[in-house]
């Protein structure tokens, strides 16, 4: 089978998780929002801790099952810089690839479309700079 079939099926599963969290709990599956609220107010919503635990445990299980390689694409100091701006930027703009990209576009939110186009363009520009420096 063509590898993109698996990519598309993976996307359908992510969509199924969005459906389950919304229909089951009434919550939007935006990972940055869930994580930011979970670390700032851990007692305010136990469901967030449960969701993150499922994501971490499931990540271990399915990475083994689907032979996901453990690789990083840059040095540890640059990963720390990247983590800082990902955390800061997603909270300030109110979402990440899941919250704006999957759920926000699914709600047909103009705000999320603007955010998604912006982080896609910034990501592409960053990779272009990295490639130019290599």
């Amino acid at each position, binding site marked *: 089978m063509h590898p993109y079939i698996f990519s*598309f099926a993976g996307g359908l599963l992510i969509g199924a998780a969005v459906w389950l969290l919304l229909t089951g709990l009434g*919550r939007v599956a935006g990972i940055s929002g869930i994580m930011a609220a979970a670390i700032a107010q851990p007692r305010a919503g136990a469901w967030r801790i449960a969701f993150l635990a499922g994501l971490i445990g*499931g990540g271990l299980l399915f990475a083994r099952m689907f032979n996901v390689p453990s690789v990083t694409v840059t040095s540890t100091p640059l990963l*720390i810089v*990247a983590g800082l701006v990902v955390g800061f*930027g997603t*909270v300030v703009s109110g979402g*990440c690839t899941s919250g704006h990209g999957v759920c926000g576009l699914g709600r047909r939110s103009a705000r999320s479309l603007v955010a998604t186009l*912006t982080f896609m363009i910034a990501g592409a520009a960053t990779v272009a700079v990295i490639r130019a420096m290599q």
Partner: protein
Amino acid sequence: MKPQSTSARPLLIAALAGVVFAAGLALGGMMDPRKVQGFLDVGGIGSDRWDPSLAFVMGGALLVSLITFARVGTREMSWSGDPIALPTRRDIDGRLFGGAALFGVGWGLSGYCPGPAVASLLIGGLDVACFIGAMAAGMLLARWWQTRAVNSQGADA
């Protein structure tokens, strides 16, 4: 069954949603930061350097998400008895552009957005743990900065 906080059912639903989300990320190849960078490498479009996987993942996820949110308007309560809590903000301002741009830079640099990073915590070793720790610090910093900005402007939220 009594809904809401005393029941374990909402926690099971949330945990299951997390597991299914992780399955989708792993199957879709999104836990491999090379594939994410490979997609963002738009200079490679037209050659075999470009990896369109992420577009197929987004397409599949968006298909289900569009149907889900189109249908959810017809129901008022979730299975747990909690109301459906949809985002209400519609403002498009400098913070949306600036925050999303910063996020995009970190995403391009590392190949990680928050979901795949968290899902990789137990397979990615110290590097991924450092990324997640820094991301948590960035989130807390942003929350502190936003509260401070709101306070100094007075109550205009």
